[in-house]
């Protein structure tokens, strides 16, 4: 089963994503900030990380760097309420940048797309 890690400080959002993605058939773990995410990646194997940017303790960009330095191959999607950093995501070596929306279809599509391309 494909295992995802949701990194998001807003509890309601995090839980919503988890429910929606579980409905899609993924196994979903949750982290409330970058620091927690880095710890969880150390002890678990994830097929993908969905990362918010602005978070307490450790922001998404720093966490992304730490995760990639352990496992270069792990796919990461940046999922944020900021629409103005989209041009930066390549330099952060993330696989995709999706702006948050109440409609989760874009996120779900991106996840599928990346997983397929990785599988090939």
């Amino acid at each position, binding site marked *: 089963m494909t295992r995802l890690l949701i990194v998001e400080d*807003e509890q*309601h959002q995090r839980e919503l*994503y988890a429910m*929606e993605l579980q409905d899609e058939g993924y196994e979903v773990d949750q982290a409330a900030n970058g620091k927690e995410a880095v710890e969880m990646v150390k002890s678990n194997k994830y097929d993908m990380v969905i990362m918010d940017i602005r978070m307490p303790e450790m922001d998404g960009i720093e966490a992304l760097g730490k995760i990639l330095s352990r496992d270069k191959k792990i796919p990461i999607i940046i999922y944020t*309420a*900021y629409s103005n950093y989209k041009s930066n995501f390549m330099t952060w070596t993330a696989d995709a940048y999706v*702006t*948050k929306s109440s409609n*989760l279809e874009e996120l779900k599509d991106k996840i599928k797309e990346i997983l397929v391309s990785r599988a090939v």
Partner: protein
Amino acid sequence: MKIRKRTFYRLLLFVLPDFLLALFLVLFFFTDLVSDFSIIMLGLILALLFARSIIYFIKSWFFYNKRVNLITNALYDIKKGKFILPKIEIQHDDELTDLYQEIRTLGKHLDSIFTAQKDEIDKFNDVYNSIIFSISSYFMVLNEFEKIVFATENFCNKFQFDQEDIKGKKIDDIFYFVNARLKGGIRQVRETGDSIILEKTHLLSINKVSIISDIKISSISVQGRREIILLIDDVTSKLRKDYQISLMSQISESIQHDAEIERVLYTILTGVTSGSGLGFNRAILFLVDGEFLAGKMAVGPDSFEEAIDIWSSVQVNELNHSNVDSEVKKHGIKLLEKVLSTKYSLKEDNIFIRSYRKMDSIHIYDSWTDPSLSPETVSFMDVKEFVVVPLIVGNRSIGVIAADNKFNQSPISNDLIELLSIFASQAALSIESYDNLANVRKEMQKIQERQEAIVESEKMAAVGRIAAHIAHEIRNPLVTMGGYANRISQLAKDPARSRDKIVNAAEIILKESQRLERTLSNVMDFTRPAKYIREFNNINDVISDTIRLLKNLFLEKKIVVDLDLKGDIPLVKSDFNQMKQVVLNLIQNCIDATTPGGRIGIFTDSDDENIIIRINDTGSGIDEPDPNIIFEPFFTTKITGVGLGLAIVKKIIKDHNGEITVVNREVGVEFTITLPLPA
């Protein structure tokens, strides 16, 4: 044994008549041989005795006289100072001879004493002379009629006098004019006997030699007459150096102080004309102005009376900015006016343009006869001898200085022209740097304008940043709300089974919408120009109200509040609720930064113009180079914060014409608000 001739004569004179007399008397008593012949014999003997007395007397008299004369002469010699007396052949040892010998011995003693004394005196004289001549000061003695009794050689050399010639002259005879201070000083010293020192006194000899001097006047009493001693220290070169240094520093100072260029030029020309400067009577300055060489400044008296007035003034003029204007106005107005209205085209040919173009000084010895001068120039300068030197910077010339000695008609030496040229190059640099400064200022102005444009575009960028932040703050709750709404619509397909989930989702949507409203009202408060209700409020009431509001929070976090509100604080025109918002936001901030058990201090104070509110904490402080950044919109260190609380505070305070600053303390921070009191 040979009988000496003298002894023989002595025998003949003293012994022989007595022997013959004795023989005769023996023969007379014991024989009858004595007859007529005997009478003749007696007479003969008596005659012999008489002759002996005569000879003896004459001889004694002669020798006595001779010796008395000798002694008289010896005493006379001694009196005259000739202590070494001739040795005489002693024929007869008597008192007079002894006396002479005594006198001779005395003479020898006197001579040795005198020689020793004379050596001392000579030595002293040498020392004295070398003191007099080695001091660089000039030294002059005036008798009771103020006539010169003595003047040192260096004085005469300096002022080109003959040391013998000036004896018996009065100082009025040797100086072109005598400073009133000097005359008064001499009189004062003669009357009181106390020494005085006249500093920086201008002396100008009839030979047109001029110095600035410190003159010490003192008096001595010689045989009941009061003589005056003048000790004259030539301080011209010292002053000149001081002057040039001070001139240069003042020029640069005037540049720094953004003085008018006129002031700089005046300062320069004062250097040319002042006695402690180059000592010219008049100086005129032309500068290139576009296609012209234009008169820019002139310094110097208009008339001989003005000249004397300046020279006899209390002291040699010190450079002093404060009196520059008044001095300009006082002297040489006509000259200045004439110069300022003079302007020559650079294509013209006259002496100023020539000096400017050739970058060389021109010395006119006699302008009345010089063929190279135009009648205009002659009447413009109106002086026999003058000099024009160029103002050169690097390899180009920016103007000229003309200088003359119109009033004392002192000849202009080549040395002086050399000095003037050096001075002119320094002056040129000063003028140039002034010009450069003016250019720099213009550039600065441009840069500032450009900077303002940049700031304007920065502001635009800031607006973009702010928009992005706002978008982020709004999107997050929207996303949550939309997401849960979506979910509700799906759950609603089977409402009975999903009732709890739907309720839960609806509650989340409600919470998030409230959060969104808060954010929006914050943003709107910040951006919308607030309408304030301005009343006279007591700031202490504002604080008391706010603290009451936060009472529970303080208790919860166990924070101690130190409150010190000034009684009778003046009322300040303000919006009560807005000020409450300010105090609330600040205290809230302090509470957030302070760990449980910390302290928050709130103080009010006032002075004549302001009300001062200080709020401090024992929190974590601000880890930023400039702590005031916390007042920037959207600056936040809090996860849940929007970064508008303190920005709103700043905006309200600004709208009340007040100021707010924050500084890090040893522990925590302190906010200080000043609110102006109504004038």
